[in-house]
């Protein structure tokens, strides 16, 4: 008969059992960090998303940044907005994302994307769980560096203008001294979720160390093991194609929400 474990007594797991627990952790792919232009960043995320299910690719985490700094806007967002025009006047390049949400200025920040088949290999079963867990991983990483960060718990989304940083939905990343510093957006197909987002860096931080902490906390929160692996050849060639045929095209990036859907690639 089982007896109750005494306080301070080690858990009775043998080494082989411990190994079993370790190997039971699903392995995800980690794409090595890089800084890319706006159209290539979006093309890579979409290529991974499109090829995942048919090519049987494990869930993937990608950390990246934007060079040059750029403005990304939501799938349905209108480029005629005065605020967006203001940023374009300042010379920031613009790219329309395959995901929803509002405009984001990608400067002094870290972006991530997370792509997987719903409920496969430890990937979340639904969109909200994905949003919460990814943001919880980032929150914990920033906490590890000593920042006081919480996730927004408001039930009603708050909206002020066309920028993501001025509106909040549940689980957005909030730095106590500054307000919202991070959010994400999503795209779904029948079985695959693409979620990407970013968080701005609070003051001076060691970026390499912060990225390591983000990876470490994704592993903890999702109960997975991240293995560094490059993009596949198929993903690379689809990315190149998407840059040329979609993300570098004026028609995709600038056409308004009601017209750009008629006729050209709906993504």
């Amino acid at each position, binding site marked *: 008969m089982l007896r109750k474990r005494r306080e301070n007594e080690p858990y009775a797991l043998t080494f082989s059992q411990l190994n079993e627990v370790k190997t039971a952790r699903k392995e995800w792919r980690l794409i090595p960090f890089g800084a890319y232009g706006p159209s290539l960043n979006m093309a890579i995320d979409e290529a991974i998303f499109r090829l995942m299910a048919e090519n049987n690719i494990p869930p993937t985490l990608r950390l990246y940044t934007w060079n040059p700094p750029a403005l990304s806007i939501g799938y*349905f967002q209108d480029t005629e907005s005065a605020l967006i025009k203001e940023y374009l006047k300042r010379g920031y390049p613009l790219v329309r994302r395959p*995901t*929803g949400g509002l405009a984001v200025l990608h400067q002094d920040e870290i972006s991530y994307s997370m792509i997987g088949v719903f409920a496969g290999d430890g990937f979340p*079963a639904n969109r909200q769980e994905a949003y919460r867990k990814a943001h919880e991983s980032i929150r914990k990483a920033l906490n590890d560096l000593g920042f006081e960060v919480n996730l927004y718990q408001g039930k009603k989304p708050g909206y002020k203008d066309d920028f993501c940083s001025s509106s909040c939905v549940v689980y957005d990343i909030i730095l106590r001294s500054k307000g919202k510093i991070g959010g994400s957006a999503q795209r779904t197909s029948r079985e695959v979720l693409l979620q990407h987002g970013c968080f701005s860096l609070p003051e001076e931080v060691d970026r390499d160390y912060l990225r390591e902490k983000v990876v470490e906390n994704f592993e903890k929160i999702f109960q997975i093991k991240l293995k560094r692996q490059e993009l596949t050849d198929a993903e690379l060639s689809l990315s190149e194609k998407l840059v040329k045929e979609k993300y570098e095209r004026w028609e995709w990036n600038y056409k308004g929400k009601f017209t750009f859907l008629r006729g050209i690639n709906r993504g």
Partner: protein
Amino acid sequence: MYPKELKYTKTHEWTRENEGFITVGITSFAAEELSDIVYVGLPSEGGKVEKGSSFATLESVKAVSDVYSPVSGEIHEVNHRLLEHPELLNKDPYGEGWIINIIPVEKGGLNDLMNAQKYEKFVEEEKGK
């Protein structure tokens, strides 16, 4: 719970057959799952749709999702009101929230879809995942 006269897909679209036309929309389950739909992207009238491919996109809470066509055919009519009133998809998914009207290329294309009872069971299974 789901209207008995309609047929349903595994990707949560409903279909209504009427005098040779097939009307398509999203089910109340899909609308609830998505929550407040804020944007709708629609195809052009006269265009073609293919069975199993996406013909419209919806945005809710920063997520963009596709709506899939249950049959191949020509798009006869599009509910343009949804562009200004995407909330109709949440408020009245089987009525004013219809999305497109298709002239199917072949008859009997809906035979492999689920009836209301089967769809209800399917949704329960999905919820349990």
